[in-house]
């Protein structure tokens, strides 16, 4: 009985560790908020260059906060990488 309990505990711990190590998609907390992120924070996104980050901050200043992440497609520098970053950003 003790052996079974120990192996079950081991199984649960392995599953929990596995879940922590293997990412199953970005959750809301991991996402970059494009309405508040600085240029430096935006640079953490894949294929994000300084020019692209400046483009996002500039759009925000000119047109107000993003209502939808889809608005990123309106920024010429960002459009080419939009599909790559759309799941990694939020507009909260």
């Amino acid at each position, binding site marked *: 009985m003790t052996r079974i309990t120990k192996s079950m505990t081991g199984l649960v711990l392995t599953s929990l560790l596995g879940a922590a190590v293997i990412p199953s998609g970005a959750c809301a907390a991991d996402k970059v908020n494009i309405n508040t992120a600085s240029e430096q924070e935006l640079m953490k996104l894949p294929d994000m260059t300084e020019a692209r980050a400046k483009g996002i901050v500039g759009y925000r200043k000119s047109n107000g906060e993003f*209502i939808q992440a889809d608005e990123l497609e309106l920024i010429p520098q960002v459009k080419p990488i939009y599909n790559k970053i759309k799941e990694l950003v939020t507009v909260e």
Partner: protein
Amino acid sequence: MMTRRSAGWPITIVASVALVIGARTARAEDVAIVEQHGQWEISYGAVYYRVFGYVENKSTKPIHYVKLQLDLVDASGKSVYSTVGYNQKAEALGTVEGEGADTLKRAPPEETLKKIEPLKPGEKDLFRIGVGKDDIPKRPKFATYQLKIVEVK
């Protein structure tokens, strides 16, 4: 004299019924939205959310206009902004907004309607309904849109 008048009544009734049936008001079911999509756009420096698509006359009679209602809805499905628009051929029936719009002389709707080319049976027509970003509430943010036909004539 009385007998002659009485004899004419059935004909009058039949003619009236035929007129009513013939002039049956078009219903929303007579038109279908056959294609639609929404996207952000920049036009003359201003940002808009626009919904485009096609309506099709599914009836056997001409249709003068199709009025559509666009609702921007939040994640819970609640409408945060609502507006209406017409099929492209009937866009003249829509309201004119912006600076100086109140100074424009507009023909009465009946007059405008006479100038609109009706949608023939089976014919498709484009529609586009746009909302300026400044008019869209910032909170709660809209997640998607809903489109429905509210009037057909």
